[in-house]
């Protein structure tokens, strides 16, 4: 089944580009150029996946996620950004996006990323994997909730491979596990990233802002 996709970006050129590039593989059910426009349109069209620009006037991608999730909790979000700034990326993931890619991604990669989000997986770029390793790195002095505040050894290994530029399939091959298992690990990491209140996570983001 083709994924039904909604595009939110305040750059007209980008929206029309994505429409024409992804139109073949995916069904584009609508697009919007602002937060106010996007929220009612998404609620109404109920797409599978929303391609969401992180930076927009009126609260950006986070505002869209917050408003839509209240009414349509099944809609999934893939964040797109040109910024690559850690606090933006971590911020939009923690708001509820299931993946993050940079805007310079090729059409084929974007298409497969949307498909993966549609299938319920998480999409980690090498950079996002690096951010997560950084955020969960070091010893937590006193993990409040080890279940959420620490990465398992296996999750860490998977993230390292992703940061090194390996695809999920290649990671599976290297670790002698199935692609499905890799996806399970990545989803677990995503969940921890979203739910952990680990002190380092916030401090780390704040530190990056100061650098």
């Amino acid at each position: 089944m083709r994924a039904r996709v909604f595009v939110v970006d305040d750059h007209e050129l980008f929206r029309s580009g994505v429409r024409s590039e992804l139109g073949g593989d995916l069904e584009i059910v609508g697009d919007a150029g602002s937060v106010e426009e996007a929220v009612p349109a998404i609620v109404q069209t109920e797409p599978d996946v929303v391609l969401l620009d992180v930076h927009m006037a009126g609260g950006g991608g986070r505002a869209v996620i917050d408003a839509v999730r209240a009414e349509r909790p099944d809609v999934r979000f893939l964040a797109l950004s040109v910024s690559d700034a850690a606090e933006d990326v971590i911020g939009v993931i923690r708001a509820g996006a299931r993946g993050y890619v940079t805007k310079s991604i090729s059409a084929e990669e974007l298409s497969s990323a949307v498909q993966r989000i549609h299938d319920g997986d998480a999409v980690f770029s090498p950079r996002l994997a690096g951010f997560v390793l950084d955020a969960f790195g070091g010893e937590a002095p006193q993990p409040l909730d080890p279940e959420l505040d620490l990465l398992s050894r296996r999750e860490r290994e998977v993230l390292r491979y992703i940061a090194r530029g390996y695809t999920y399939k290649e990671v599976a091959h290297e670790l002698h596990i199935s692609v499905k298992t890799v996806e399970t690990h990545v989803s677990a990491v995503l969940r921890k990233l979203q739910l952990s209140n680990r002190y380092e996570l916030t401090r780390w983001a704040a530190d990056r802002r100061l650098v």
Partner: protein
Amino acid sequence: MVAGVAGGIGRHLGLHPNIVRAGFIGLSFALGFGIVVYVLTWLLAPLEEATSTLRAPVRSIRMPTRSQALGIGLIVVGLVVVLWITGFWFGGDLGWPVVLAAIGFAILWARSTDDGRGRWTLSGLGTPFESVVKGQVSLPRIAIGSLLILAGMAVFLAANTSLAAAGNVLLAMIVAIGGAALLAGPWVWNMGRELVEERSSRVRSEARAEMAAHLHDSVLQTLALIQRAKAPREMASLARTQERELRAWLYGRAPELAGVRLRDAIDSMAGRIERQHQVSVEAVVVGDAEMDDRLRGLVNAAAEATANAARHSGTTTISVFVEVEEDTISAFVRDQGSGFDPDVVAGDRRGIADSIIGRMERRGGSAYIHSRAGTGTEVVLQLPRSAA
């Protein structure tokens, strides 16, 4: 009554103006002290916006700034010290000169930090005087203050024939004023300067944030679009280089830090290879470390591996991943290009042996190359944190 001081104080303290006025009058019997306080308060209190043109402007008492508090404190202390030293606590011919001098002192120093209100317009003295004073902040103040102090001395000398006492009081006054100037002058000046600096740096950072937001929305987006648009390789690479430089500037990674922190060194290495070979290098760094000679070796080896990948692999994307751990620093340079068999590399390809493996081994590290024809290449560099 005269300048709205009692009303202002009353408003500030929540008392009826008449009670305040009664207090002033009471104080005035004690050597005109109430008048002194009245005048000082009038001089120091900021002018409240007059809502009605019919009423005299009411001067509101706000909490004094630190400089004002210090000024008032010093004046009072000066007065008390002078009176106490000379033993003329209630001496009429001493009181007025001291009061004059103290007012002069207050005019000289008070409000000199608050540059917003420093434009001392003397609205109470009427417009002709105001027009003379306006535009020149400090000169009239200095002139008036000095005049008052001199007048105080003259009055004192005229009224007092005892030269010894004059000498004592003059000395005490000079010491008090000189000390106050020495104490308060530089501090007041510094405060003024800090205020100006803080304000201008805030303006700068606001301007920068605004510009960053603007550039982010326009230029960065455009550069990303150029890279997406299947542009010629040179153009896409140019856009990517510009994007990297702009991003480094926007998010505060200065190129001059490349020699200081590992993260910046790797970023700048990636940018260099991108420019030279027109490929895109995705560099991810986890953790950070201070650059030293051994780390420079690691960065150079990684640069060589990245350049090799750019030259020989046939792909346009190279991943560089560097991780700083407690005891080891690892670097991974990976491409998904043509790959090669490391065992059959021609002997004239010295790059791998010298620039990568040799470089790492000389610094106590190691280098492995995983490659197979068709599946790409990965160079793994590892360096123990301390030279064991």
